[in-house]
């Protein structure tokens, strides 16, 4: 449903003054509407950079379980499915960006130019699966554990 709204928005943002369109319009018009933190780390509940250290395998295992129950309907590791391939997502995005994308998917696709591009490419709005901050952090750790580029 939301994705339909956003499709509508992109074609009618100039004449509509509803919230989502306005947001979409600002994101479209210029990404300079975002702070440099937001451009780098996304928009959502994570407002500070998330530092990661040595791979925490226990946390990664926890993240794997959450990924399998809440994300695997649409994401696979190693190939595109409903959404993008996430095997090397930690090479492309910061931990905070990934967490914001997980916890605020429709906010991200409305406001963040990168997320918006992905919505245009994949056409399905990413679902909000009601993932907590701790769970999102664990998912990040799982992504790190499957990314061959992760340096321990």
């Amino acid at each position, binding site marked *: *449903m939301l*994705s*339909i709204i956003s499709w509508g928005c992109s074609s009618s943002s100039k004449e509509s003054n509803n919230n989502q369109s306005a947001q979409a319009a600002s994101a479209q018009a210029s990404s300079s509407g975002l702070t440099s933190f937001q451009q780098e780390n996304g928009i959502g509940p994570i407002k500070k950079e998330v530092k990661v250290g040595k791979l925490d395998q226990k946390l990664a295992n926890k993240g794997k379980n959450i990924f399998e129950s809440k994300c695997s*309907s649409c994401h696979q590791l190693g190939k595109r499915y*409903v959404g993008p391939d996430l095997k090397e997502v930690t090479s492309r995005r910061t931990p905070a960006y990934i967490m914001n994308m997980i916890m605020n998917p429709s906010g991200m696709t409305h406001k963040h130019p990168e997320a918006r591009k992905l919505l245009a490419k994949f056409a*399905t709005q990413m*679902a909000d*699966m009601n993932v907590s901050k701790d769970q999102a952090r664990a998912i990040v750790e799982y992504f790190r554990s499957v990314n061959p580029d992760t340096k321990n």
Partner: protein
Amino acid sequence: MSFNKQLKNILTGGIALLLAMGTFSGCSSSNSKAGDDGAAEQVYVPPGKHDEFYSFMSGGWTGNVSVYGIPSGRHLYTIPVFSQDPTDGYGYTEETKALLNTSHGSVPWGDTHHVEPSKTDGLYDGRWIFVNDRNTPRLARINLKSFRTDETIEIPNTAGNHAASFTSSNSEYVSAMSEYSIPLDKPLGNGTDVPIDSYAKNFKGMCTMVKVDQKTGQMSVDFQIELPPFDYDLGRFGLGVSKDWIFYTDYNSEKAHTMLEANASQNDKDFVLAINWKKAAKIAHQGKGKVVSTEYYHNIVDPKTNWAKSEIKQKVRVLQPSELKGAIYFMPGPKSPHGINVSPSGEYISIGGKLSSTVTVYSLDNMKKAIANNDVSETIDGIPVLDFKNVEDEQVKKAGLGPLHVEYDGKGYGYNSAFISSEVVKWSLKTGKVVDRHPTYYSIGHLTVPGGDTRKPYGKYLIGLNKITKDRYLPTGPEMFAGEQLFDITGDRMKLLLDFPVEGEPHNATELPASLIDTNQVKYYDLDKNQNPYVTRKEADAKVVRKGHRVDVYMTAIRSHFVPDNIEGIKVGDEVHFHVTNLEQEWDIPHGFALMGMQNSGILIMPGETRSIVWKPKKKGVYPFYCTDFCSALHQEMQGYVRVSPSNSKVKIAYGTNKEL
């Protein structure tokens, strides 16, 4: 205090209006021009803004309850209650079908009449709405967090459950009551086979007190009172000073059983029945009366599984009026009365004199005095009849022709609907004097003031629930939605603001401030807490299991695919149970499930919830299924196939999504 003498005759033109009723064009020419006087602004709710009140209207023969926003009149939702609804599969899904179980079998339709909100201290509390089915005597409880029917209960030993679903000041009890008396076995039990003309001897009326668990809202039949076979029509619990009482009107004190239109209007007076329910409950709980065999269904949704289960009850306590000394009285009332309403203070009880032009007002004080003085004129079936002159307080004369119901604004005024003369009449509770009247279009039945049956009415608006629509809207063939009318009652004169059409034929409505409800809404169900026995929490757990001829499909739905979406190995003669879990955890992202040729209903599954529907394929072939709720840009692609093979086929169960079987 008696104000009879202060009454002045006020010219009303009631008869003229009655005549005008015959020619509806006459009425429309005298139509108030809502909009000329700021009315449009008063009902305008800008896009994206919300209404001030929720209005819950019984749908009458729709068997359901419809929800509107006030003042805009926008139709917000329809809550399925007693009628099956293919919108979301209510009454068709395995989870919900038990809600329609009765001792007569599954009864998938109803006739809803009175919607009553739960109360605390005589004020609405926004927890539940109670509503009755008049035809197959039942009560239902709607949860205002989910706008769903959570419970239904059948009322035993009863027919024509019209004076029902009224609630006491703290929702301790919900009332049910027979309009149509029926013969009952001795001891009471299932219907009795007797000649209809033995009505006066064998038929009985029955009042039922249904107890409400204050924590869960769960209803239970606490006790019943056997009554003479009159037609008990409407009722109201008292408020404030009268909160321990419930009052009912009745007609047919003639005990007619045929051509009631003529034969039940012979006597000059009928009765108001007053029961001190608190006292009656105390007597019942002391073990008075008899526990008799009967059979009725109690159906309730388990909040953990969202699955309704039925329980068959076989006992009920029945008291005779003679066992309720000091707790039950008749008061003579106007001939064939209809509505009965209690003023916010609880002091005054108003009765619409349906066949007259008066509203009769009793005072609780007078009633109590008459009881104390034993002013009893006769006793009917163990029920003392109080002397009329001593209980009546005032009569509102010129209340229009055919006054039916009264509502109060909390500022000392009563408003009665007048069906025959098609108008609302406003009068002072203090003097009984009519101060304003306004025509309605057409033939108003119930009327409602937000909070009009509480200690503190919100006032502000009055809604007339009209029975006849005629020319008010674009015509839609012989049948049209009922037309309701919104009035502003903040000034001295009533001001017509808006006409709005509504589903079915609402017999009664209730308005709650949006703030009591809107912040408590369930937006989705937590998947981790879903305890439906057939839940599938992740796609990896989706499966198809055969056990004999029964096949259970544990399916998931998420934007925008099902798992599994290809299923083989189903055979003609199988009973296929689809258990679809919506994996979404986001507000307003339901998924639908519909399969070609499905004989019962498609279903909608709310986020985080599981719903089950049974399909019995009759012919071999490949059957597509799809999502019916537009869920994403790839919604059209949300589809799949079930292969059905002949009953003797060797095709094995196989299933999956995005893989070859």
